[in-house]
């Protein structure tokens, strides 16, 4: 799987008009309805609804403390909202544990890198295959026959991802030794190893320089286009958000203040006020 074949530059590839018609026709992968989440007296999310269509890149933006990460935590089962409904692939979801969400095909990266620091890049990505491996304790002890076959099978998959994200050189390096930008990339690789239907990216470009951001943007587009993965993206770099995403949700103080095409959202008065403040 070569990235070069599809190596299209990040910006300009997605005509806004074309994708809008496309996404409107697409089926909904995940929908959240009237979600309310509070911790004691603090309302992190208030009555927010939106949906994510299959195959799109959906950005969630907003000022700090707007409830974006809380929203992701609700989607992958870390937080349990007091009110509201979540349905994934048309199935309404009850209170669930994170590993159940993982089992259903939701993967995630974190704002502050959450890699397994004591393990190598390869092991970190193999860790993403955990749910797909089933050999029991007996065979694991022997590491032979079916267990070895399974291990090698998944190694092939993992190597495909390593090729895809161009991290061959750091395969055997413990991730703790890697520079930050590469750690972020390994984290993406680990999430991809789960072969998710929905990929949640929490600030994949935070703290990166321009070049690293361009690389990461290209990878996100490649994942979306080549693998067909639906992506929900939290990002502060508005330029990146406008270029990458099909649709944007804007949160502020736990409430949804805008939802729509990037260009529309950019022009929205409430959004501008939330970001720049209101004149009094």
């Amino acid at each position: 799987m070569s990235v070069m074949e599809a190596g299209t530059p990040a910006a300009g590839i997605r005509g806004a008009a074309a994708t809008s018609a496309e996404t409107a026709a697409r089926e909904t992968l995940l929908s959240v309805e009237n979600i309310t989440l509070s911790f004691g007296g603090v309302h992190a999310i208030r009555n927010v609804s939106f949906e994510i269509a299959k195959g799109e890149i959906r950005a969630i933006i907003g000022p700090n403390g707007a409830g974006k990460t809380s929203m992701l935590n609700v989607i992958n089962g870390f937080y349990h909202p007091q009110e509201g409904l979540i349905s994934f692939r048309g199935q309404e979801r009850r209170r669930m544990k994170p590993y159940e969400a993982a089992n259903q095909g939701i993967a995630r990266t974190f704002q502050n890198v959450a890699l397994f620091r004591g393990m190598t890049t390869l092991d970190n990505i193999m860790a993403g295959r955990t749910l797909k491996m089933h050999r029991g304790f007996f065979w694991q002890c022997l590491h032979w026959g079916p267990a070895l076959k399974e291990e090698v099978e998944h190694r092939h998959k993992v190597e495909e991802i390593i090729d895809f994200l161009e991290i061959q050189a750091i395969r055997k390096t413990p991730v703790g030794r890697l520079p930050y930008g590469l750690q972020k990339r390994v984290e993406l690789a680990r999430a991809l190893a789960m072969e998710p239907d929905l990929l949640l990216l929490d600030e994949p470009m935070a703290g990166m320089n321009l070049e690293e951001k361009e690389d990461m943007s290209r990878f996100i587009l490649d994942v979306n286009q080549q693998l067909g993965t639906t992506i929900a993206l939290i990002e502060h770099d508005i330029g990146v958000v406008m270029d990458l995403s099909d649709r944007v949700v804007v949160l502020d103080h736990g409430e949804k203040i805008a939802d729509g095409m990037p260009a529309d959202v950019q022009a929205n008065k409430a959004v501008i006020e939330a970001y720049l403040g209101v004149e009094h």
Partner: protein
Amino acid sequence: MFYREAGQFKTTYEADQAIFPILQDRMGIAVIMVLALVIPLFATDFVLASIMIPFLIFALATVGLNVLTGYAGQLSLGTGAFMGVGAYACYKLTTIFPDMNIVVMVLLSGIFSAGIGIVFGLPSLRIKGLYLAVTTLAAQFFLEWCFIRIPWLYNYNNSGAIEVPERTGFGGMVLAGPASPPITRYYVVLAIVVAITFLVKNVIRGRIGRTWMMIRDMDIAAELMGVRPLFAKLSAFAVSSYICGVAGAMLVFFWLGAAEPSSFSITVSFQILFMAILGGLGSLIGCFYGAAFIWILPVLLRTLLPSMGLDIASETVEHVSRMVIGALIIFFLIVEPHGLARLWQIGKEKLRVWPFPYA
């Protein structure tokens, strides 16, 4: 110079994932295995019974603790007690089935300590780190109390200690008891330790071992990748306690010959923990380094110091060896907090690129 992997190309993932992917490592381990098999033929009973057998048993107990603390990240101070469970279980088993092979009994007795380990591992689902250490400390004291207060465990004898009866196996060989020759016991212990270490290595490099390390390194992310903390933590407790139980049973049946509750006191737990820390948490070879350092070095010092011709009292020898060991522990932990195994690894990395400082 000689430790270089240039020219060793791997064409399959199987070869790449082997335990010893580098030829020199394979040769090294083969030499060590041959030495381990041949040297005892020439060694004295003292070397076998006071150095080699306890070294191997402690190394195995350290492997057990390392599974839990080094790989799964759950700090435990109950190692001694889990070893005791194995020893007492083996004693009861061999009392009930006196004709069964003692090696089988030793291996079965680990299952009992695995069960106990799971019970005392339950708090780990709620608490972490030092707080968990305190609950395993409770296991230590409670089980020690059981060994004293439940006479059934030591067959109601007056001394309150367990005495190893003579046990045979493998066609009439005397394997345990006062009449068993140290060399037989050594080979039995060696076989069990090597086999279990090999199996543990396999588990660690597969799916289950990865889930343990995922829980250790970042439990939140692990859960999001589909690891169920309940299974991961309790399986680590079970495997770890099984190994410690087997080590405990071997400690009594193949080394001490008799044991009382204080043989499994908190001192043993700490001794094993120090072996694991000094050897290197999260490393199997480190277990052997740690056990060698803490067990063999003092014995060597105690025998070598008088043989140098110095006229010193035996207490002084004991004191000096304790001071030397203490100083060395501090020295090594300052040089490399990740233990002797990390030093070994760094040394190998340097050798690979020698004479250049970097690759």
